[in-house]
């Protein structure tokens, strides 16, 4: 419940927030101590005008960057999850229902994907992609790529769960009944099995979102994410660590860290709650 409320809050923040806060790219050099490139004042320069303080070096408003960063984090996390769920459910249901060589093929493919050194691959892939491709350019292309890379490699997790569920469901009487009155593969798959899978799919999707948000932050952290000056939580963390700001201005690391923590916790709590509600046995 708390998780749900937090999610609603985060989503509202991501949608409405960017129109309310200041421009996240505006420099405020006057708020920075030139000798130490650290914000003036305690707690990373927290003031009425800048409730979360300002960035070291640039003096950009932290609240604005966190809020706009939330938009990208949630968008990428959500879209990547949708992609993973669509692919995962499709292949999982087919593998589970038909069994035999189809199952072997798909299950082994899932194993390959799970064993893939994903991070290395993602870094290499995003590193070689040019500035513009497929009619997209700049950050639009980056968002698209991040969604693809994250989502495409996350589907086996969903696929395995769905396959497992289908393996037991397909032996149940209602499936036999559907088959006996002449139901064919596609009908049984999507009209008989799928509705019974909604609960686990929903639960695991919710749990996949925070994983994907974290992965997006990790890619940003490694410098293969969004293009600066677009705000991103992962890049703020990365900047704080590689530039040594965690010592000089700890708030610069704490605030994006907290943002990631809250977002991940919200989805996890929500997912757990959902599982408890939909599956009374785990209570």
């Amino acid at each position, binding site marked *: 419940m708390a998780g749900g409320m937090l999610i609603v809050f985060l989503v509202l923040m991501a949608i409405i927030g960017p129109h309310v806060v200041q421009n996240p790219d505006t420099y405020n*050099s006057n708020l920075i101590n030139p000798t130490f490139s650290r914000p*003036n004042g305690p707690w990373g320069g927290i003031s009425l005008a800048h409730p979360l303080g300002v960035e070291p070096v640039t003096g950009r408003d932290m609240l604005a960057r966190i809020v706009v960063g939330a938009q990208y984090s949630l968008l990428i996390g959500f879209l990547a999850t949708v992609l993973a769920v669509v692919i995962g459910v499709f292949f999982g249901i087919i593998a589970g229902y038909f069994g035999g060589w189809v199952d072997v093929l798909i299950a082994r493919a899932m194993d390959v994907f799970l064993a893939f050194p994903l991070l290395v691959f993602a870094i290499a892939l995003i590193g070689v992609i040019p500035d513009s491709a497929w009619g997209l350019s700049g950050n639009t292309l980056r968002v698209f790529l991040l969604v693809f890379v994250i989502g495409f490699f996350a589907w086996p997790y969903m696929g395995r769960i769905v396959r497992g569920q289908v393996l037991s469901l397909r032996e149940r009487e209602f499936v036999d009944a559907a088959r006996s009155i002449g139901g064919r593969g596609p009908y049984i798959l999507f009209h008989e099995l799928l509705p019974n899978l909604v609960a686990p799919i929903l639960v695991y999707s919710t749990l996949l979102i925070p994983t994907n948000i974290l992965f997006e932050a990790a890619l940003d952290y490694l410098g293969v994410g969004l293009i600066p000056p677009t705000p991103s939580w992962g890049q703020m963390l990365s900047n704080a660590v590689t*530039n040594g700001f965690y010592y000089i201005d700890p708030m610069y690391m704490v605030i994006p860290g907290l943002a990631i923590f809250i977002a991940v916790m919200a989805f996890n709590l929500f997912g757990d709650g959902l599982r408890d509600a939909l599956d009374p046995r785990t209570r």
Partner: protein
Amino acid sequence: MTKPRKLAIAACAVLTGLTLAACASASGSGSSNTADVGPNSNVSFSAGVTGVVNPSSAQGGTLTFAENSTPDSFDPGNTYYSWVWDFSRLYATPLVTYKSCPGSCGLQLAPGIATGLGQVSDNGLVWTYHLKHGLKFEDGTPVSAEDVKYAVERTYDKSVLPNGPTYFQTLLADPSYPGPYQDRSKNLMGLTSVTTPDPYTVQFHLQQPFPDFNYVVALPQTAPVPPDRDTGANYQLHPISTGPYMFQSYQLNSQATLVRNPNWTPNEDPEAKQLASKVVIKLNVNADDIDNRLMAGDIDIDAGGTGVQAAAQAEILSNPSLMKYSDDALTGFLWFAYIDTKVAPLTNVACREAIEYAADKTDQQTAYGGPYAGGAIASTVLPPTIIGYQKTDPYDALTQPNGDLAAAKSELAACGQPNGFTVGLAYRSDRPREVQAAQSLQAALARVGIDVQLHGYPSGTYYTDFAGSPDYVHQHDLGIDMGGWGADWPDGYGFLDELTNGNTIAPSGNTNIEELNDPVVNRMFAKATNPALTEAQETAIWPQIDQQVMKDAVILPEVYGKSLLYRNPAVTNVYVQSYFGMYNYAVLGVSS
């Protein structure tokens, strides 16, 4: 003119590679109540930049260095790290070396194992060096001219010794020589462009006149190597010493211990001293750990010489009692942005001048790490520690460090783009400081309507595939390209040639990224290589080139790189050698 092209690019790559550590260390500072304590409040701060700190001739003690990483090699013929060049003076003396003294004096050459600087023939093609008599290796065997020749020969084989500079290969008359490891000639002395008429004379035969050749033989590569003791790639484990110290033990990439060389006399290299009885260097030590142990007095000098990390920096700059043991040294590096003359609308000089005026130099300085660990605001191409530097300020970088927006707007109008224009900017996305600098330049130029699109690239291929490829630059409208530059020797030629000479524009690995082909500049370079020129006449040309390049507005100087160095108070004879931009390791001692 000879173009040490591959070479100089390697130089750039390695030297900038070196500063990565500096880039990764950051800017920073203490708690808020000490924000007003500035280094100016202490008179002893940076005493080692202008004078010798703790002069002493006391003998004995152990001098301890520590290094965050490892050397590329301790072999004097196989290193391109400037700190190893500095450190190698302890055990390898080249023909010519640098005067051991603080300030601009430390940029001047002095004889090493040679009796004097080189004598050049009238046609500028033959350089002759005479060796001092009575020189010995650490084992007592005499040093002969053939050992110097052999030392140069072995640097030709890049499959065995891949790291060092390749000036000899590009400058000398025998470029296809394979190196002694594949040499089939008798005595392994097959390099025809270095001759040894007698045991005390070495002659270098050049393809074309090269007035800066003395600087080339001042590289550690001319330190003599006895052919029968050369072990190829393993020579780094025990280079045979001609300096005040010799290797006692070296556990590869862990720790090396050097002891006094009994066969060394001050006559061998008057620019080095033999004070401490032992020199220890610890490798692969965590950078923050080095800083803490420096301040605790457990380590004497950080060998890497790129300055302390952010944490120690904040501690030092806010504490006067620590500040007096630190020095704010110019590194000899310029951090800047190329402005490409072939990318519209920057083909018009007024549009380029608009960028020069509109940039916020203070923000740039903050982005590079602030005034102490980042650098001083720059207004010329040549940094102050290069021979030929002359202070000028054509775009008011020093008087109006936040930018002159009115001037920028009138230049924009003169260029026919009164509302600004859109241009791409290339930077290395794995360099945190460069990322900050790129964003700050973007924000500053937006103030006059110049819309900058950022394009980040990996630093490994930045000069080969992206900013260094004119085709790529043109296709992607990369009118502004961030860069950093340091020279292998501290004169105007070494710094400016690859950067601004029109004949250095190359299809890949381009270092003249602004694609400047200004006949005025080119003529001055041609003039400077005339062998009949005196040194003073040659030196007078560099500021003229600098000013002409600035007039062309193809380089936006940002900062002259600086690093904050810390020395253990027990170290004696310590000062910053301007050539290295770090402490002179050859003369240090320790007081007990």
